[in-house]
């Protein structure tokens, strides 16, 4: 508990002055299955992006560029909603993936 704030240090009335700092919090370790992006199948429709509950689809310059595994909880919505044929997102077991 040593890195936690003392009663003299906590913000008055619990007014939290760090907007959006939850982005520093990792939820990726909740996953049991993980989406894998198959770039060559991607049609850049952004369905995965608009439907992701965790804003874990990374985009840059109007392009889908991958998955934010720090936050992706592995719900599978992205793969389910991917309209590409064959799909550009596939769910695999977390234990089957070598890395993160």
């Amino acid at each position, binding site marked *: 508990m040593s890195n936690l704030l003392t009663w003299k240090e906590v913000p008055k009335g619990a007014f939290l002055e760090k907007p*959006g*700092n*939850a982005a520093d919090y990792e939820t990726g370790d909740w996953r049991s299955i993980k989406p894998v992006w198959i770039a060559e199948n991607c049609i850049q429709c*952004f369905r995965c992006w*608009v439907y992701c*509950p965790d804003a*874990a689809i990374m985009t840059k310059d109007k392009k889908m560029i991958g998955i934010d595994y720090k936050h992706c909880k592995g*719900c*599978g919505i992205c793969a389910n*909603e991917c309209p590409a044929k064959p799909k550009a997102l596939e769910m695999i077991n977390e234990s089957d993936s070598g890395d993160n």
Partner: protein
Amino acid sequence: MANLKQLSQQEEFFTPGHRMCAGCVAPVVVRQVSMAAGDTPVVIANATGCLEVASTIFPYTAWRAPWIHNAFENASATLSGVETAYRALKKQGKIDKKVKFIAFGGDGGTYDIGFQSLSGAMERGHDIVYICYDNGAYMNTGIQRSSATPQFADTTTSPAGSVIPGKIQWRKDLTAIMAAHNVPYVAQVAPSHFNDLITKVQKAIAVDGPAFINAMAPCPRGWRYDTREGIEMTRLAVETCYWPLYEVEDGQWKLTYKPREKKPLTEWIKKQGRFRHLFTDENKELLEQFQQRVDEEWEKLLRRCGEM
């Protein structure tokens, strides 16, 4: 028409790292509302509920915009006060930006315990967009029935038993009740139909005065379906006409989406564990009753919208 690629270049007011369950659709609603708000400065109030607790576990907050939580039943009243403070400061020349005020509440905090507060705020005409993320039960406390719960759903306080087959009552039609407040804009939305949702939220934001939006937000634990099917759940709810997409703009009812072919209700409910008990021989009649009521409600809406 929302151009997703363009929207992806905006910063959203809701960040990842929130602790809503995997596959929860409420954050999808919040994100799409954020996409609709775009650069408009917003101040947000949140009723107690899943979204509130899971997004602001001290010392973390998933909100980039000013955000306030007070209690369960009073998001509307709290935001009334914030919006009034804004008007006071504006009148005094201490603030010049145009700010929009958005409230989020679940169906518990909106249909039930927060209903009085919501009704009061709408009647008084505050410049508030109230967004209900309707997951059809008190999910935060462990799936108890609410007045938004569909008839026959099995919840922990309307358990499907040998005598009582789940929730007895039909759900409260809150969207229509809000329309009866004669506020400038009321709409029902589903995140599967993001174009519709984003367009409606943009309309609600553009309105000067109160607006209410009822957004279906499935809960994988409460409805008992595979987490990957969250968006499919709202799509099927729309396609079966259980959850029609419509708006009431200055008193004019308008259907904003009409399924090409109305799907049978079973297409939607067969995927959900909370309706499993309806698929037995002895409950066949209930299933028919359920479908019949959905048909009636749909026709009522079509008449209201001048579609028949």
